[in-house]
């Protein structure tokens, strides 16, 4: 297979191609037993043809059909109403720590050993490991375009996720990184501690309280309720609440946010995005003032500006604007829990996808949360809900912690804000 053969097909003005190869392996345990081992290998290529400025797209996993796929993309271009001009670039940042050779070389038995150690740990603590997965991934991408770009990048990933049943209380913890770390016991310990803390039950009254939003909770709520508002596509269409507010104080001055596509060891870091545009570090909010939005080529060219390198895609989809590493800067408070007189420490909301992507309104159940009094964990409140609005919440932040972790696309500490908690 020679990917460059795609360019010898006639009938396009510009062409780009994204080739991806991913190797995944994972081991799982269930009910205190190691269960199975699985692997997946996927290779595919997506083609964008630009004809008279319009975009056609087709993909395949069959490389003998490469030229046929290019012809499909050319054929489809006539229907499109979107236009784009592909470009070439000279300079690319090289984020460090996104590929770990050890992940690719690690023996399968090491995964099994790690999982076995988690099972032993859980048994010693008189708990049940209900479900655990440990996964390694290796991804290789190649981007070519008719403007002379010929780029490649590779990355690795390691994730562990553990669920515990302690006296019929379930709690979970996850970890994610680019490199292989010996952290499964730590992840397991966190899940066990949380389950044990949640086994003490209590009741609370409805009211406004300081809620500590752990990064796990923030990732879920912000990905539905805030990320879309920074998308230039929504801004241009007028469905972003932040449209027209650049330079305005939109949030509490304690809040500073960047979208950092070149963060060292970032789970979403890469030298280039899905259109070959160099990844960059984009300021979004500086001390509560709105500084910018996220762009791909199409949306950037609509405003005659440069893309921010936020075209997110895989080989089977057209690029869409998305966050890379959504980085919230740490505050001053070191031990957040001890600073809260009366409040809720929230790890997992229930049904976070019901958060309104347009308005930011949320009204959620609660899966994992602990009640704090005088800086100490007291119990898990029975049957509570939380409600409010993401934009209002971020306008009045009580304080921001220093406990930064990386979870999915979010790199953030805990955030504390007054929130309506509906008790039982």
């Amino acid at each position: 297979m020679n990917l460059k053969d795609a360019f010898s097909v006639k009938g396009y003005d510009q062409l780009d191609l994204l080739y991806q190869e991913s190797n995944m392996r994972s081991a799982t345990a269930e009910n205190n037993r190691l269960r199975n081992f699985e692997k997946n290998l996927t290779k595919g290529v997506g083609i964008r043809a630009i004809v008279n400025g319009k975009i056609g797209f087709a993909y395949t996993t069959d490389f003998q059909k490469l030229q046929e796929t290019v012809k499909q993309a050319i054929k489809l271009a006539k229907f499109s109403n979107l236009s784009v001009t592909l470009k070439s670039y000279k300079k690319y940042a090289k984020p460090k720590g996104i590929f770990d050779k050890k992940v690719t070389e690690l023996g399968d038995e090491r995964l099994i050993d790690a999982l076995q150690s988690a099972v032993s740990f859980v048994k010693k603590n008189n708990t049940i490991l209900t479900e655990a997965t440990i996964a390694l991934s290796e991804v290789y991408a190649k981007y070519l375009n008719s403007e002379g770009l010929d780029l490649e990048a590779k990355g690795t990933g390691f994730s562990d996720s553990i669920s515990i049943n302690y006296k019929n209380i379930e709690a979970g913890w996850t970890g994610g990184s680019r490199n292989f770390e010996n952290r499964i016991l730590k992840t397991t310990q966190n899940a066990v501690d949380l389950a044990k803390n949640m086994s003490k039950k209590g009741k609370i009254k409805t009211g406004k309280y300081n809620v500590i939003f752990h990064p796990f909770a923030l990732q879920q709520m912000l990905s539905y309720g805030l990320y879309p508002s920074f998308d230039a596509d929504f801004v241009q269409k007028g469905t972003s609440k932040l449209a027209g507010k650049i330079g305005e104080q939109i949030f509490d001055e304690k809040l500073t946010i960047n979208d950092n596509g070149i963060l060292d060891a970032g789970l979403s870091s890469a030298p280039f995005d899905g259109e070959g545009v160099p990844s960059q570090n984009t300021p979004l909010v500086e001390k509560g003032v709105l500084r910018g939005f996220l762009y791909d080529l199409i949306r950037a060219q609509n405003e005659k500006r440069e893309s921010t390198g936020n075209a997110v895609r895989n080989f089977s989809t057209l690029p869409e604007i998305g966050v890379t590493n959504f980085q919230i800067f740490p505050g001053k408070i070191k031990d957040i829990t001890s600073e809260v007189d009366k409040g809720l420490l929230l790890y997992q909301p229930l049904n976070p996808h019901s958060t309104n992507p347009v308005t930011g309104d949320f009204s959620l159940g609660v899966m994992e949360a602990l009640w704090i009094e005088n800086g100490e964990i007291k119990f898990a409140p029975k049957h509570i809900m939380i409600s409010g609005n993401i934009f209002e919440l971020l306008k009045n932040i009580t304080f921001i912690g220093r406990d930064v972790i990386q979870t999915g696309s979010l790199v953030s500490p805990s955030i504390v804000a007054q929130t309506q908690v509906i008790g039982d």
Partner: protein
Amino acid sequence: MENSKYDIVDLAQKVVKHAEKLKIDYADIRIEASSTASVLRENKKFEDISFGNSFGIGARVIHKGKLGFYSTTNPDPFFAVEQALNLSKISPSKEKIKLKDTKIIKDKFKEFGKDPIANHPIEDNAEFIKEVEKNANISPKLKSIRISHANLFTNYIFASTEGSEILRDGGRTMLYVFMTAKDKGKLEQILFRLGAKDYTVYKNYEEPLKKRAKLAIDLLDAKKPPAGRFNALLDYECTGLFAHEALGHAVEADLILKNQSILKGKIGQKIASDVVNINDDSTIPDDNWSSFKYDNEGVPGKSTTIIKNGVLKSYLHSRETAAKMNAEPTGNARAQNYAYLPIVRMSNTYFDSGDYSFNEMLEQLKNGYYLVGFRGGQVGTLKGTFAFASDYCYRIENGKIREFLKGCTFSGKILDMLKNVLAVEKAKRKFTIGFCGKNNQKVPVSDGSVHMLVKDLHLGGEE
């Protein structure tokens, strides 16, 4: 749409023969040659018209009681099964995995329906989407109309060393319309969706679509419902979601075995009020979205009674969970596609209709809320807590429908809520389509029902 050049029957037979030559205790393979045609239009512009094809093999091996699974886009017929065998050998499992015996099936069928997807080329879909947009565009207050349409066409084979061979040719079509209304700085978004195995689903879509568009606009000026505990009337979408979230997940036998369900050990027990009857049925003919003839282990789909008159009758099983719990497979082992291991999933889950008329239920409710339409839900099966959101609701006063209010989340405990069902409507069941996520796999499901009256529902509205 064209078919893949691979002869998947020939390929499957080769793989099975190879597995037999390797003296593997049990192997099954799933091969899929798929093509997709999708159209995305927003605000009178086609933003995406694309076409794709993909091919993949998933091989599952159970050898000496150990399970290995390998999936790939590589069409080499021997590679996947050899890799799966190797993975079973290094598999950590100490407990032997067994599959419950099932009928050997040889079948070959097409699921094209009355109006086959293949008769609608992508050019025609583009025209259809324009017409949908015109119909949805009922007011300048609709700031954005985003229409996503996709056709998926799959040539699928399941074959096992036990001798089963199931060849299916068919696909799915779906239409999602996101309508965003904006006025005086206020925004609301409403989704309209349709999906089926053929195009008959798009007949007479116009009025329901316009109703949804109007809803987005009406919600702009609606107030939020209050927070607290109330009695409530649920429409068929909320009731269906209730059957799926509040009960369905907790009876998935893999969760029972993993100690992740509050319903463990409760078969034969009364867990709901007398009026509660819940089934999961993958053979419903009029639901043309998530019904299936065989599951992804080759077990025939069937109707399973989960709750009868308030008594828990059965869990939902795969062959593996059935073997462990000494039950019969219920044909609920499903995988998102060839790249995933099948796990226990629901199909079409619904409350059976009851004895009450809508007006009788309103009268019985007297004061409370009437919740309509769903925005998705989630359940914690061990804790036994669920939450889901309605699109909108009405306040009910003295048995009369009063003001129209925004939607809100309602939350409850599985065991409390099932006992709090007061009445179920006597009417024809209606179903809503959607996707359900579990262990990172999404499969099409539908939930359905009639109106239902519930007491003591926890609403998460405004103070």
